[in-house]
């Protein structure tokens, strides 16, 4: 089932939770709504489900307008953040609930209901636990019961609110992989909400990055990570250094450095912010394009060495991350001045940092020649 979101606006009192959201979701897609808390991602999910009603705008399932459809007629499988499993029912009864509440004409016979529930319980790998009550299950098991329960109504779309939020790290990783496999098996259009960029990037076909009730960018994992449309997206998807820079023609001067980095995209001339991730900074020889910085301190955290440095001209604090065994680590010594190369970066017009207004559109992304090394 493909889903179209058209101009959805929703206010909670005077707080604009959603300020005009448009989104097309294709049939069978696995989509992540990613954003910080208060970005409107959960509200959007609940509007699609029919748990909230928009002040303006349309939700279309296929060509069908959902405006007048209450949640019970939408056939959406909704998995709640804390699962909302019915405590007084066994696993089997929870999964069978959606079939048992159907009107007499549509309700399959009890034997078939049980059969179907068992199949689903097997699908989520909980066979043998049918008679347990939710309180007798672990967090990961509850999550899967909630999923089986949602799948039992043969949903047109599966909606998951922070599906892994309440689980510990190890279980979360396993479940993530398992959910991806399950999606590939069932092919149900799936939308999930998360604030964890790693989760979104690993699991989803496409990621919808949201901020302050608006969509900042929609794209594949690669697109949002490598071609972030706005400073917000760049910042939200990972650690970020923001360096002052200036564009002249096709050259970008970082930190007042005379050795310009050449880009192949066209930028508006003038002051810019150059966004670069700590892991995209590498030591280069003194004449190559880049900028100079003095290493202040180093700290190894597991497989990665983290450096704090200061840009020579602006005094801007910079973070650098290098794999422990990388040859750069030898060049990095506290007190030493090094020239840093930008593997990959984004250029945005200099922001007046007051917040509030809409963020400017993307001007340029990193040129092809800087992508030669890929991400480490």
């Amino acid at each position, binding site marked *: 089932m493909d889903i179209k979101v058209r101009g959805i606006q929703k206010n909670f009192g005077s707080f604009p939770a959603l300020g005009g959201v448009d989104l097309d979701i294709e049939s069978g897609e696995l989509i992540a709504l990613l954003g910080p808390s208060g970005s409107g991602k959960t509200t959007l999910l609940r509007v699609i489900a029919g748990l909230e009603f928009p002040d303006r705008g349309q939700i279309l399932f296929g060509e069908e307008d959902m*405006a007048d459809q209450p949640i019970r007629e939408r056939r959406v499988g909704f998995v709640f953040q804390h699962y909302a499993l019915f405590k007084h029912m066994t696993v089997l009864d929870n999964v069978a609930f959606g079939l048992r509440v159907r009107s007499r004409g549509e309700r399959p016979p009890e034997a078939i209901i049980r059969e179907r529930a068992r199949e689903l319980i097997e699908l989520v790998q909980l066979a043998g636990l049918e008679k347990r009550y939710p309180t007798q299950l672990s967090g990961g098991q509850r999550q899967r019961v909630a999923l089986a329960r949602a799948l039992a109504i043969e949903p047109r779309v599966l909606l998951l609110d922070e599906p892994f939020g309440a689980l510990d790290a190890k279980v979360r990783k396993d479940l993530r992989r398992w959910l991806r496999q399950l999606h590939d098996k069932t092919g149900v259009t799936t939308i999930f909400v998360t604030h964890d960029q790693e989760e979104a990037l690993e699991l989803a076909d496409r990621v919808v990055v949201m901020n302050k009730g608006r969509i900042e960018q929609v794209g594949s994992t690669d697109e949002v990570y490598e071609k972030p449309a706005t400073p917000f997206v760049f910042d939200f998807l990972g650690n970020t250094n923001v360096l002052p820079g200036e564009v002249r023609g096709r050259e970008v001067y970082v930190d007042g450095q005379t050795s310009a980095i050449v880009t192949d995209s066209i930028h508006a001339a003038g002051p810019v912010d150059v966004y670069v991730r700590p892991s995209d900074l590498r030591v280069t020889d003194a004449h190559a394009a880049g900028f100079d910085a003095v290493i202040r301190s180093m700290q190894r955290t597991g497989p990665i060495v983290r450096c704090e440095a200061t840009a020579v001209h602006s005094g801007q604090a910079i973070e650098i991350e290098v794999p422990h065994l990388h040859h750069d680590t030898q060049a990095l010594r506290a007190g030493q001045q090094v020239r840093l190369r930008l593997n990959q970066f984004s250029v945005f017009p200099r922001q007046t940092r007051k917040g509030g207004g809409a963020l400017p559109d993307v001007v340029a992304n990193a040129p092809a020649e800087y992508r030669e090394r890929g991400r480490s």
Partner: protein
Amino acid sequence: MSSLVLSPRSKTHTVRTTAIPGFGLTLGYTIVYLSLLVLIPLAGVFFKAAGLGFEGFWHVVSSPRVLAALKLSFGAALIGASINAVFGTLVAWVFVRYEFPGKRFFDAIIDLPFALPTAVAGIALTALYAGNGWIGQYLEPLGIKIAYTPLGVIVACTFIGLPFVVRTVQPVLQDAEKELEEAAASLGADRWQTITRVILPTVLPAVLTGFALAFARAVGEYGSIIFIAGNLPMVSEIAPLLIIIKLEEFDYAGATAVASAMLILSFILLLLVNGLQVWARKRHGGSR
């Protein structure tokens, strides 16, 4: 999220504001039920009292017998609630902090005044505190007469208000972090200082709430008081009884006037206590 008004939308349908059904049905039923049972009848009392005019109202209320009854009802309720504030807090403290034989039993029996019909409580208290009663016989030689005096009214007020303070203070004490006391101790406070400066301020709002509830209950109490009070006009006659006497004399207007006076006085006092509670909560940042 939802409002009483369903605003029309540009097209034919209206904006739904919540996914949960049953708003109109349940709220409608609730409002109708309350209106029929409470609002309309209560408005009637004030309407009736207003019919007296202020002169008539004042004439009834300022008669010595009514004044004495009001004074007794409110005074005894105030004293009873105060006794409960002290002993209720003590009982709650003992229940939360100490172990002793029979604790569970006594804890369960605290709610007796809620569950025991007031008339039963009234005759039982009288049997205990009358001059020849179980307790009264030991007090009488000392010159203390409880039953058939205002003291009896206070005893009954204390009885029916007892659970309120205990049950409001108990959970607050339960939640109060032991760490606070340990912190006070680590800073050099002795036990008495810890109790008066750390623990009591924390539970004060709850004590006041319990006090207000106990007081409100005792002011209007009838059943458990009339048996023990003796009901001597001007001495041990409570306001609710006076209402009944006036009703039996078919003096509806007089009864209504006394009732209104009670309602207004209770309201003012509750407002005061409420203000005090807000103050205590702000001042001491109580946990509830």
